[in-house]
């Protein structure tokens, strides 16, 4: 072994690499504050990751053993071979489930590593310093893995996205959580060496992950995804403590912090607390009273693409409020064409983006960016709400609950208090919707029955294309 190799395999050198790696993570993430620096920021963070992996592979003894090199290379190649094409091919509309899936495999890796760590050290040098963080990682990582898989299933429509609830759910969840923690304490106190306990922890945590996410409705998904992201981050940080690895601690903790911030922002945008969301979605018991009185709301006015085109063309200002329906119908390009057609007619067009529109934080922004809607036309809720009074026509495309005036006016409504896009203040509102079915919250939307509201039923993409064609023909 040459002097150079010996130097490379020094622990100090490895540690310095880790410091460089996590500095690059932090620097890279701070690039995300603006769209111009963001691409570079992401590349910087990726470079940090590459440095951390290479440094780890240079650590003494990592390649020891006859099968070790093959297995390491197998894992690295397999992961890249699966992850790369998946990430390249996924449609922007399918992004929430992709993020959920990537988050899930991260959580799975954490749980497995904690399990192996336990198998190695138990009975020998398994000190509390290793034990507590790895048991924490086992529980939280496993919750995150299974929870993310369920979230993926719901977003991919493999599992129905309405809340699925068992009677006494809260008690069952509490009991599962207690079992997991109790098993962890028994293990940590060091009296029982049985492998069964660690399996018990992993299995109860898995059940808990399923049980916590199943009752959560589609509309709460932005909160859930950010929460699970935070969980995986924190469990990775715990693994870092167990393994004495600074890169893991810092990397995991940054994710934990960002996930926590996002979770709180999303929950605030829905005027709900995180515990309330985790305890179960809308649509169960709460929606029943609101549904009982909806029959006498009055008639709904429906309209045609040609009428909408005339209304839009002669407006001075039009606001488009997109929601998850736009993503489902993949209507973002059609919407962009409409925006251009209207702009050519001299109409001012703005986009109103509610923080929880869609299924993950910032979902609508990504779709509209994909279709190249100019960045400065996208207005956040606080910015756009004063604009509605000056708006001639508001076009609601596949959004429901985030425009529901009941959140302002009906104290009995389950979403009362949630900040909304105040579309009902514009001179007229046109709602594009597939049918009169209620949104995820299962709550009737009085907006649809307002005299100034008209409904255009049908697939969002074809409706928008028809409107655009009519506008261009005028």
């Amino acid at each position, binding site marked *: 072994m040459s002097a150079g190799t010996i130097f490379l395999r020094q622990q100090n050198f490895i540690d310095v690499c880790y410091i460089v790696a996590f500095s690059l993570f932090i620097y890279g993430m701070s690039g995300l504050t603006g769209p111009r620096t963001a691409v570079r920021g*992401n590349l910087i963070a990726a470079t940090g990751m590459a440095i951390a992996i290479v440094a780890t592979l240079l650590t003494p003894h990592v390649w020891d053993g006859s099968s070790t090199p093959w297995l390491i290379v197998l894992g690295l190649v397999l992961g890249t071979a699966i992850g790369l094409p998946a990430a390249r091919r996924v449609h922007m509309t399918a992004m929430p489930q992709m993020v959920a899936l990537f988050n899930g495999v991260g959580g799975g890796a954490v749980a497995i590593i904690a399990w*192996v760590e336990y198998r190695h050290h138990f009975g020998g040098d398994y000190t509390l310093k290793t034990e507590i963080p790895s048991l924490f990682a086992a529980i939280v990582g496993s919750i995150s893995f299974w929870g993310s898989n369920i979230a993926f299933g719901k977003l991919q429509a493999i599992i129905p996205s309405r809340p699925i609830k068992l009677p006494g759910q809260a008690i069952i969840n509490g009991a599962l959580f207690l079992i997991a923690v109790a098993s962890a304490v028994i293990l940590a106190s060091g009296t029982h060496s049985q492998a069964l306990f660690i399996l018990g922890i992993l299995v109860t945590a898995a059940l808990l992950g399923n049980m916590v996410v199943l009752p959560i409705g589609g509309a709460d998904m932005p909160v859930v995804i950010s929460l699970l992201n935070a969980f995986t981050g924190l469990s990775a940080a715990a693994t870092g403590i167990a393994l004495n690895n600074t890169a893991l601690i810092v990397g995991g903790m*940054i994710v934990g912090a960002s996930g926590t911030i996002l979770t709180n922002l999303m929950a605030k945008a829905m005027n709900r607390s995180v515990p309330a969301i985790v305890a179960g979605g809308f649509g169960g018991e709460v929606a029943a009273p609101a549904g009982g009185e909806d029959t006498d709301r009055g008639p709904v006015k429906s309209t045609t693409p040609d009428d909408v085109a005339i209304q839009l063309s002669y407006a001075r200002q039009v606001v488009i409020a997109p929601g998850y329906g736009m993503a489902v119908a993949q209507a973002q390009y059609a919407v962009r064409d409409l925006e251009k057609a209207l702009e050519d007619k001299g109409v001012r067009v703005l986009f109103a983006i509610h923080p929880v529109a869609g299924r993950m934080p910032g979902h609508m922004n990504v779709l509209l960016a994909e279709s190249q809607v100019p960045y400065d036309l996208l207005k956040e809720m606080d910015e756009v709400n004063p604009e509605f009074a000056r708006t001639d026509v508001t076009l609601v495309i596949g959004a429901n609950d985030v425009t529901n005036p009941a959140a302002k006016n009906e104290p009995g409504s389950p979403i009362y208090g949630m900040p909304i896009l105040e579309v009902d203040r514009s001179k007229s509102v046109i709602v594009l919707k597939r049918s009169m079915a209620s949104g995820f919250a299962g709550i009737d939307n009085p907006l649809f029955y307002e005299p100034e509201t008209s409904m255009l039923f049908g697939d969002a993409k074809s409706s928008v294309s028809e409107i655009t064609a009519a506008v261009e023909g005028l």
Partner: protein
Amino acid sequence: MTLVTDIAILVLAGFVGFAVISKIPNTLHTPLMSGTNAIHGIVVLGGLLLMHEAHGWLEHLLLVIAITFGMINIVGGFVVTDRMLEMFKRKPEPEPEPTGKGAEHEDAPQ
């Protein structure tokens, strides 16, 4: 390193994370999430470090799975984030320049 050092690093990293990430605008929340998502794939290091200590087929298999999962997380996360951010980057100039790449969607007759 002692437990206290590790916890100190953990706490400081938490503060740094909060400070950096609270400045990120709503518009970029999805890329932020998928970017940080990629970062927690760093747990792959754990799998790499433990492999040579593994005994028996079960542990080897588990660690191969862990490394695979971690790499899916890392590679997928960064690539997806890059794709998203590329779309945001060419945003600020709406019309002036003749449209560059990704223009195939707007060549429809005006």
